[in-house]
């Protein structure tokens, strides 16, 4: 069973790492494209006509949704964790089981509606009109992929926490408390 926890963890980390790489690339593109747009506007009075749509439709959703699972894995999402200082490890495991399970349901629902929307938009060939015709389905597809990844990660963690509580053998550790996490993040 412990091996299963390790396999799950490694599998998620590999996919999240690749997904985060794409999000990081989207971040770099935003910096370059938005800066170039400003410079073209003020120096040559010739701004790009496609910057806003590219960034708004694809790049920002890519950063948000392709990094969301990695952020969850790194315990980077802000939580009010004061109660965690005062309860036993077993009680902490219970609280995280509930939050992981609810998170899985929430993001599975988002992935579902996003996938449906992406499919509809793809089939009907929806575009954002302008000088360039921007297909809108990739935005919804990005949301669906990122949410599905997070939903699966949360479900996997919930399963391992339930197993830990049931068998008494720790399959998944407790997240560090916020102060430890922030310190470690900053110290890197």
């Amino acid at each position: 069973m412990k091996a299963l926890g390790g396999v799950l963890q490694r599998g998620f980390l590999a996919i999240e790492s690749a997904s985060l790489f794409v999000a990081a690339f989207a971040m770099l593109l935003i910096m370059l494209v938005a800066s170039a747009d400003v410079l073209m506007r003020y120096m040559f009075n010739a701004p790009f006509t496609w910057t806003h749509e590219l960034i708004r439709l694809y790049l920002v959703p890519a950063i948000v949704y392709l990094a969301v699972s990695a952020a969850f894995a790194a315990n980077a999402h802000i939580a009010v964790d004061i109660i965690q200082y005062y309860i036993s490890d077993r009680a902490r495991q219970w609280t995280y089981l509930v939050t992981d399970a609810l998170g899985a349901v929430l993001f599975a629902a988002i992935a579902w509606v996003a996938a449906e929307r992406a499919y509809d938009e793809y089939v009907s060939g929806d575009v954002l009109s302008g000088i360039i015709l921007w297909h809108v389905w990739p935005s919804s597809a990005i949301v669906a992929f990122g949410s599905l990844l997070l939903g699966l990660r949360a479900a996997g963690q919930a399963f391992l926490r339930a197993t830990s509580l049931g068998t008494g053998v720790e399959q998944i550790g407790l997240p560090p408390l916020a102060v430890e996490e922030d310190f470690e993040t900053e110290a890197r």
Partner: protein
Amino acid sequence: MTTLIIMLVLFGLLCISMPVSFSMAVSGVVGLFMFGGVDMAMSVLTRTMLSAVDKYELITIPMFLLMAEFVIVSGIADSLFRAAAAWIGRVPGGLGMATALSGAGFGAVCGTSSASAATLSSTSLPAMIRQGYEPSMAAGVVAVSGTLAMLIPPSVAFVVFGLLAEVSIGKLLIAGILPAVVVTITIMSTVAFLVWRDPSRAPLAPHVPMSERWALTKEVAPMVILFAVITGLIYSGISTPTEAAALGALTAFLLAAWRRKINRKTTLHALRRAAIGTSMILIILLGASMFSYAFVLTRVTQDLVMFVGDLDVSRWVIIVIILCIYLILGCFMDQMAILVLTVPVVLPVVVSLGFDPIWYGVLLVVTAEVGLITPPVGINCFIVARYSGRPIGEVFRGAFPHVIAHIIALAILTAFPIISLYLPSKM
């Protein structure tokens, strides 16, 4: 009844440490389900999953975060304290004051307080302790100086407030400048007061020759350029905060490259960290958006505005009570969580009382600064304690005089709204 259930679900989930973004989204979905069944809940989910994050203005957040990452990579920030200390180290409490100045300087190119506290902890704290400063006093001034990053542009807190409150982000960022001067002077005055009471707490630093002072100052000149690029562009109206943020990130990248600190590893590390930070903040806005849909249906905000409007007390009493509640919340909750949970409800009340939302935003950020250095979850104190190896109680003790001083500064900013509103009025 529905309102009660939504609030119970929200606070229940927050209590068991569910991420704030997820808690708000789940309680919002529960509320929408109660109002209009599965169809309404799914329809809002479909609408908000993209509409909450597909605004062009949102790129201000990732670009400010990225700029801070590249500034840290460049190592320029490390020179700030040495430059400030060279100039005022011979004044009683000079190194403490230099810490406040470097906190302000670092805040001028970095939008988050924890990064600022971490950087100051590794530069100014060891220097003060080596000089014979009382450890708790040194740790306290480092913790409080780190908070200045929230107030000085580029401030991520102001951007988030602006998005939640639908207030001009450019004006908000500029509004933070004069209050930041007030708070910096407050920190320096507190250090001076503590040293005046007991000079042995802070021995004088050694003399630094004039040539060395100028050499150190030249090292930090790029940071001044970076600050001038961002703030100057926004204030003059030449560019929007979004454009200024992108240019700021690019300038920080070029500065790091100029100092030969850019390689594949450092660039990827900075991009990844900024992406994770962005995702975390924007998912909070997504959760807040879902929650708002349900909350608007409850009409609680309108009822609250009417209730407060009917109260037979001065509006100043109400604003003081609101600020006191924020100070108490700051002791227990993360500042970003406080923003998203309270702004949609409290801002309409504040505006209905005739107060300016920009001024309220500034006060909110100053109360948030206090929350960063008050027990039990004052995150800046924890960061300083870990870096310095000092007991956390000692750091909180050292920060306590600054908590009192900050509250005095908050009172000044509350009593004189012009301090916050003068610069935005000139834009």
